[in-house]
């Protein structure tokens, strides 16, 4: 037998478009909202770092800054990942590998460019360095800094969650 804690049978609007019927243990909401809530609350990035930004990303993931509290868990396989954090200098030699990883990710997939190198090439305008990962990948969030502090990465991730929240419910074509 279901344990009914609340006897209220009228729907209560707890947020715009989200109604709860306490007596029926029911939530009424558009599928788009539900999907985006699930998406933004369980962002799984690829375990993938390129340079010093990756150290900062690891610090963000570790206990002091603790990415787990946002539902962010690094996955060791691109097949299980939603987002790729490009943390570091993108070299031309690395570019084919990054493209390969990106295409192995399941859709919808996102890219966060972390640090000046991933955003624009940074100080490295040289023969070996790609001038911004957006020259071959669609970047959703840019995080400046050299390297960005964990707070900046967290801010970028929160902006990214906001972006998912505002995204219309349809298949992303990339």
């Amino acid at each position, binding site marked *: 037998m279901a344990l009914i804690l609340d006897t209220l049978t009228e729907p209560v609007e707890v947020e715009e478009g989200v109604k709860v019927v306490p007596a029926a243990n029911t939530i009424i909401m558009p599928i788009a909202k539900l999907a985006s809530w699930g998406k933004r609350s369980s962002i799984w990035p690829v375990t993938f770092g390129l340079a010093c930004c990756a150290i900062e990303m690891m610090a963000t993931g570790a206990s002091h800054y603790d990415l787990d509290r946002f539902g962010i868990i690094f996955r060791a396989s691109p097949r299980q990942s939603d987002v790729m954090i490009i943390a570091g200098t993108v070299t*031309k030699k690395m570019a084919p590998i990054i493209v390969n990883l990106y295409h192995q990710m399941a859709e919808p997939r996102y890219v966060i460019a972390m640090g000046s190198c991933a955003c624009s090439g940074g100080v490295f305008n040289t*023969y070996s360095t790609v*001038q911004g990962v957006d020259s*071959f990948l669609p970047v959703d969030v840019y995080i400046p800094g050299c390297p960005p502090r964990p707070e900046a990465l967290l801010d970028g991730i929160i902006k990214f969650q906001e972006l998912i929240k505002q995204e219309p419910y349809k298949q992303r074509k990339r």
Partner: protein
Amino acid sequence: MQSSDIVNLLKEKFSKEILCTVYFRGDCTIIIKRDKAKEILKFLKETPSLDFDYLIDVTGVDYMGARQPRFNVVYHLMSIKNANRIRVKVEVPEEDCWVETVSDLWATANWHERECFDMFGIEFKGHPDLRRILMPEDWEGYPLRKDYPVGSDLGDKEWKTFKDILQQTKERA
């Protein structure tokens, strides 16, 4: 043993091969001809009183437009026992661009010479495995040469794989 003693010892044995010696802030550099470079390096390593058993680094320098011959290959040597250091520079012309390998004397030289080959296109004769070490194997050109493009945009010299990626991105957009 002082560095001047080392130089004197070398001058005794290889008087014709040594072009000049430079002392600067306690560093001793000798510039030598290419033909007997390996013999001199072997002498530095195997003479018991010198005993340069540690090869710190092998690098190249491109003096394009500054002096002739165009390239130098620089060996930094150290004797751990005597705590001596010496820098040996070998002059290498642009055409006929080679030096003999020292990877059989110091195993360290293997990768250093590969790097030098990768960046400057200097051939190390007798090297057991002279391939590029940093750049992709099908990369064209030698990036640390002075006549190589400075910025990221290499134009026609761009690596083909990267060019293809940019092309594919353009087509997908």
